[in-house]
């Protein structure tokens, strides 16, 4: 198993670890629920250094990304970010990505840890013949995510940067505790917060400074267990659950991310153009139940009168914020309408759910 650079510091903070895509990752420190609530009510600090940081630089960088990914990277303003997908020729999703534009000819593409090799190799392949460098710097960066309503207040104690001015899905250079970092207002929890890219040799000192600044503001170290329930409540898909190579962007609800209208060809365009013309047979929906029993990944979904399943759960939990079970599922498009009653086979017991709008949870805007 691979270790993140600050692994031993997390152990000292009380972390239990889990294998996540071949990485030994902090799963919880004290309690999943306490960590979940800390992010919703004050703040949590995640170490997500397992993610892949791929830098794209060169004269052709923007047009290259337009060709390699389904979105229009060339339209991203400098200092801004966009959610995107990298697909194969058949339109299957290789990974979902955040694309940050750092300069006219410089981008940072962040990939999921488990897909890093697949993404880097596809991106290198697609760069052939172009004036662009694809540089996998994943091992050179510590990536911390501070998430929650107190994030601005905590970080402002260790930086002079005007954090309030950094917009959602924007990125900027910033000095944190004296260390030059890349600071992005992005996250995977449904809360306000920042993702901080720190040169690996300074990771420990920045992490210490953040915890010191957050000591009296309810900041907790937070692990992957609560990250999963937080992103689920926020209706955010997770690769390997809601997305894989057999799923196309239209099924996953990402039709708008696919820019069939952009200039020139891109990998997967022909297949995606065809797929965009037909209604998908199965689509991703949100489900809400009552009681306390969670519908979990791979459980089968039924409708009244059907003996065969009409779908399958991809993620599910008893929502810590809402107090009832929530889930995402792929269901036959015939049963995807809002309020459709659905039943989930929870280890032999048919349990009532209904189709609801995503996300399950939306933070109150200030």
């Amino acid at each position, binding site marked *: 198993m691979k270790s993140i650079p600050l692994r031993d510091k997390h152990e000292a903070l009380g972390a239990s670890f889990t294998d996540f895509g071949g990485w030994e990752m902090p*799963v919880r420190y004290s*309690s999943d629920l306490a960590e979940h609530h800390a992010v919703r009510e004050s703040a949590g600090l995640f170490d997500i250094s397992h993610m892949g940081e791929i830098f794209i630089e060169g004269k052709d960088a923007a047009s290259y990304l337009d060709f390699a990914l389904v979105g229009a990277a060339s339209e991203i303003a400098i200092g801004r970010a966009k959610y995107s997908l990298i697909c194969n020729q058949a339109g299957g999703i290789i990974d979902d990505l955040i694309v940050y534009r750092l300069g006219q000819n410089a981008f940072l593409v962040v990939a999921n840890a488990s897909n890093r090799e697949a993404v880097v190799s596809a991106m290198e392949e697609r760069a052939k013949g172009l004036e662009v460098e694809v540089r996998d710097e994943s091992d050179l960066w510590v990536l911390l995510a501070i998430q929650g309503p107190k994030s601005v207040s905590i970080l402002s104690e260790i930086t002079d940067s005007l954090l309030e001015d950094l917009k959602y899905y924007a990125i900027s250079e910033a000095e944190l505790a004296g260390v030059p970092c890349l600071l992005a207002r992005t996250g995977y929890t449904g809360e306000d917060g920042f993702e901080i890219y720190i040169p690996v040799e300074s990771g420990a000192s920045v992490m210490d400074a953040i915890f010191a600044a957050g000591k009296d503001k309810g900041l907790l170290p937070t692990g992957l*267990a609560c990250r999963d329930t937080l992103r689920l409540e926020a209706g955010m898909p997770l690769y390997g659950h809601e997305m894989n190579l057999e799923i196309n962007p239209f099924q996953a609800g990402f039709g708008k991310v696919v820019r069939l209208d952009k200039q020139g060809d891109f990998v997967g365009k022909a297949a995606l153009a065809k797929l965009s013309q037909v209604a998908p047979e199965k689509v991703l929906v949100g489900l809400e139940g009552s009681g*306390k029993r969670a519908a979990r990944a791979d459980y089968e979904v039924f409708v009244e009168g059907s003996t065969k399943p009409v779908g399958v759960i991809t993620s599910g939990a008893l929502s810590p914020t809402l107090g009832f079970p929530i889930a995402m599922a792929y269901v036959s498009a015939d049963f995807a309408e809002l309020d459709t009653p659905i039943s989930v086979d929870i*280890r032999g017991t048919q349990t009532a759910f209904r189709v609801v709008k995503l996300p399950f949870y939306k933070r109150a805007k200030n």
Partner: protein
Amino acid sequence: MINREGLKYTKEHEWLSIDGDVATVGITEYAAEKLGDIVFVDLPKVGSSTTYMKICGEIESTKSVGELYAPVDGEIVEVNEVVSGNPELVNHDPFGAGWLIKIRFTELPELLTHEQYAALTGEG
């Protein structure tokens, strides 16, 4: 405070406190910690019968589902109703207020001693 050293244990991480022909059963602290925060407990009905090492209940955490294996053949004589409404008790006090069921057993199978269980979990 229950004396953990006087308890019996199973490989499935249950503890048993034997009093005459009734065994009080819970899950160990080790199991509770592995599961994470417990949010739902499904216990058998009073009067139902149990079979050694057959599943008789479920313990769900935010992350996963743990099964409760009957550690003895017998009949359920009491279930902890408090824990059904407050499943977090299993995390906070697994050997005390977080007990789960009481079974009147016919005969005791071979169970682990505290030392054997501690060796199994690498603790002790």
